[in-house]
């Protein structure tokens, strides 16, 4: 029998107020691609941080290739041969690829040798990368390649990947998987963390499932369905959202020739964006982050006031010059991408957070005074109506898990009975159970006659929710196409910027597809 690459036995780690890892054991074999599954807060990140030496276990043992080791910091981990690609990149925009990689190495060779090595490694693994380019000119997928190459230069024998595909187009994901399979063939072990269960089924050969800090199961993802794995993670049966056919009415939101200019050199300007969302339908806007999503959301919410009043019309009324409050008065409700820090104030209670956007449509303010009794009952209606797990209306927003806070925010917006709901990243980082509930609530809202616009990077989500899908790339929006007349591959190509091929087809009105 082969000696495991890494063997964790009975690892426990306690933080004030929670037991993040409780007697966790995990064995990683040489060359396997092993998935670590679990909802947010299940203890995945803590376990990975212990392996990478960022944190120390309170108790338990770690065997590296059969030898007991203490991994006291990430340097020690790298010396053993453990590499990690984080979800959030740590790259300097103004430095070149080679300079960034040199900064991350223990003993960087002279720059010329390093560039040679980078070229060699990137060719070998199909990770096209020019060492002389500056980071700010790279796409997100290319930036991730920099992080991966940085790890590979240190000849890792265990590579940890934390949510690596959340920012990639489907085609980029395929290329990443090819690289990872090649590494695994060469004997490198890969520990793969992701919420995307279909990807895990396609890539991984074994999976360990965590729930509440404990190992609750193991499986072979190739023999499971995404649904069965999701149920293992949440420990309950999952109800998939149902989407009856849409009956659309008039255009509730019309966007015409919306262009923006920004002083911020890193902002993406919107260029002549036009679309409409009709009552009763859900329009999905796909795209890799940084292609103008934040700017489009701000232009719709009123956080950015537009030059052209008529560029955004809500229920027929020009709204480009209106602030968020006046747009809400026209029937807009809005769920921002960042739920903690924009959609909710972390330090305030849920009933105070209910006032944050609810003060326009709900009778929460009278003669300049806040009616805290009504705010409280509004918060309680949200909590009970959307199954928000929280210690009542007095709980601080930051004490909620991501999924529960998102349910609260979406519930807060939906209970205001909007005629138009704009949602950014409705289920980003939200666990499967909460995501299904959120999806169903959005569909129900649309079927009740509201217009819903969903902006998301998650194609699976958009295909579940949307009646029509359009793609945002470099500030331009493609024509929308009916969801049942398109495929993930086609949308993926648009996300990668292959507008030319697609726009030719778009000149032809819908229905010819």
């Amino acid at each position, binding site marked *: 029998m082969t000696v495991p690459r890494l063997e964790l036995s009975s690892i426990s780690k306690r*933080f*004030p*107020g*929670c037991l993040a890892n409780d007697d966790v054991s995990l064995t990683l074999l040489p060359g396997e691609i092993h998935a670590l599954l679990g909802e947010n807060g299940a203890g995945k990140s803590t376990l990975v941080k212990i392996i990478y030496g960022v944190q*120390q*276990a*309170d*108790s*338990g*043992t*770690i065997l590296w290739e059969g030898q*007991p080791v*203490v991994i006291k910091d990430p340097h020690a981990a790298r010396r053993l041969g453990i590499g990690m690609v984080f979800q959030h990149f740590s790259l300097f925009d103004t430095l070149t690829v080679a300079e960034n990689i040199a900064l991350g190495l223990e003993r960087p060779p002279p720059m010329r040798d390093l560039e040679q090595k980078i070229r060699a490694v990137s060719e070998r693994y199909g990770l096209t990368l020019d060492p002389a380019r500056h980071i700010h000119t790279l796409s997100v997928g290319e930036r991730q390649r920099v992080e991966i190459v940085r790890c590979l230069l240190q000849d890792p024998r265990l590579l940890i990947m934390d949510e690596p595909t959340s920012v990639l187009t489907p085609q980029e994901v395929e290329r990443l998987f090819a690289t990872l399979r090649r590494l695994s063939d060469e004997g490198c072990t890969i520990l793969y963390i992701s919420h995307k269960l279909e990807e895990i089924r396609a890539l991984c050969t074994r999976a360990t499932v965590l729930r509440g800090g404990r190992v609750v199961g193991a499986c072979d993802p190739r023999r499971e369905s995404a649904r069965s794995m999701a149920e293992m993670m949440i420990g309950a049966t999952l109800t998939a959202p149902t989407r009856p056919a849409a009956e659309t009415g008039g255009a509730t939101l019309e966007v015409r020739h919306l262009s923006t200019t920004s002083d911020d050199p890193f902002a993406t300007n919107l260029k002549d964006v036009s679309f409409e969302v009709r009552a009763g339908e859900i329009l999905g806007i796909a795209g890799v982050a940084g292609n103008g999503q934040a700017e489009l959301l701000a232009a719709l*919410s*009123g*956080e950015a006031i537009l030059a052209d009043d008529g560029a955004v019309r809500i229920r027929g009324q020009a709204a480009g010059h209106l*602030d*968020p*409050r*006046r747009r*809400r008065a026209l029937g807009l409700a*809005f769920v*921002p991408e*960042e739920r903690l*820090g*924009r*959609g*909710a*104030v*972390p*330090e*305030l209670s849920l009933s*105070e957070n209910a*006032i*944050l*956007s609810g*003060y*326009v449509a709900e009778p929460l*303010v009278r003669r*300049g*005074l*806040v009616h805290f009794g009504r705010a409280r009952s509004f918060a309680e209606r949200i909590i009970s109506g959307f199954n928000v797990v929280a210690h009542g209306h007095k709980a*601080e927003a930051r*004490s909620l898990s991501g999924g529960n806070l998102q349910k609260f925010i979406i519930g807060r917006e939906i209970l205001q009975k909007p005629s138009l709901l704009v949602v950014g990243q409705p289920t980003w980082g939200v666990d499967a159970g909460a995501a299904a509930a959120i999806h169903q609530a959005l569909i129900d809202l649309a079927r009740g006659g509201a217009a819903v616009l969903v902006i998301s990077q998650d194609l699976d989500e958009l295909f579940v929710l949307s009646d029509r899908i359009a793609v945002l790339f470099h500030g331009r929006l493609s024509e929308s196409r009916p969801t049942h007349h398109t495929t993930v591959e086609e949308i993926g190509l648009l996300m990668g910027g292959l507008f030319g091929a697609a726009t030719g087809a778009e000149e032809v009105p819908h229905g010819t597809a």
Partner: protein
Amino acid sequence: MSMIRLEPRGQASPLWVYGAPLLAVALTLASGFVLFWAMGFNPVAALRAFFVEPLTSARGIGELVVKATPLTLCAVGLAVGFRANVWNIGAEGQLTLGAITGGGLALAFYGEGGWWLLPLMVLGGIAGGMAWAAIPAFLRTRFNASEILTSLMLTYVALLLLSYLVHGPYRDPDGFAFPESRLFEEAATLPVLVTGTRVHLGALFALAAVAGCWVLIARTFIGFQIRVIGLTPAAAGYAGFKEKKIIWLTLLLSGGLSGLAGLGEVAGPIGQIVPTVSPGYGFTAIIVAFLGRLHPLGIVLAALLMALSFIGGEAAQIGLGLPKAITGVFQGMLLFFLLGSDVLIRYRVRIGARKTVSQGATA
């Protein structure tokens, strides 16, 4: 290996939110003890002279209230701004302007005053402080200039303006060229509330300001907006709250209350306009606001404590022959220890080595 570590608590400790100021006071007293001892005084007697003796007479307690009045007026206004991340550091200047404008009215109507003069002076003092605070508000909202710098620098402009006025237009024509105004007449002086002390009507203004600011923050929608802007500006933008409006409002509020404090000094205990209207109430009020946890009631207690440091400082100067700086030393120590103690709200102190992984235990 033993060491002292800070460990995050996960959430704010309600005990230490209120415990930290008490710990800071205790540490200040302990350091004062060492300081006096090192300087060759009997520390117990010195601390007693500083902190206890001023409180042993009705007159001493009256003085405490007299000094706590301007501190409270300035600090409650500043605290409202601080909650919205509007850092008005120039209360001293706004206080000075209130003395100049409100007191100027007393001089302008000298000899013709009636019942209407005092209310007019109060309004004039408030308007003067507001006008001075309006400058940083305009610069911040129009040019995004930091109100910390502009309000602080305007303080020195205000002090020089006062100096010019008492040496020129405001100078008492019968005053032998001393840089002082006339003594205000009866109709231009705030009535004394408790005979035998100098406690004046301004103390009631301060209490009203405390109550008003409490209602503003805790009950009104404006107060809610102030809190949201201070905690999470992005959420305020999302909700459609107008940050510029709140900047104007909080600066005008704190400026107006500081101006009222300045008027209260010249129309109260001083009774005329002199080159130095305030021993630094406007700056000390910043400490008071934080020591009082930005809460109106906490501010009243903190203002009384800081007033005691002024009076005790005077007593120490007279009784022990210590330099004037002793007041500032004690105020500075208090703020220093408060900021240090505040760490305990979010962290707990652990002494001793980190627990190691059992297999690597060194025992």
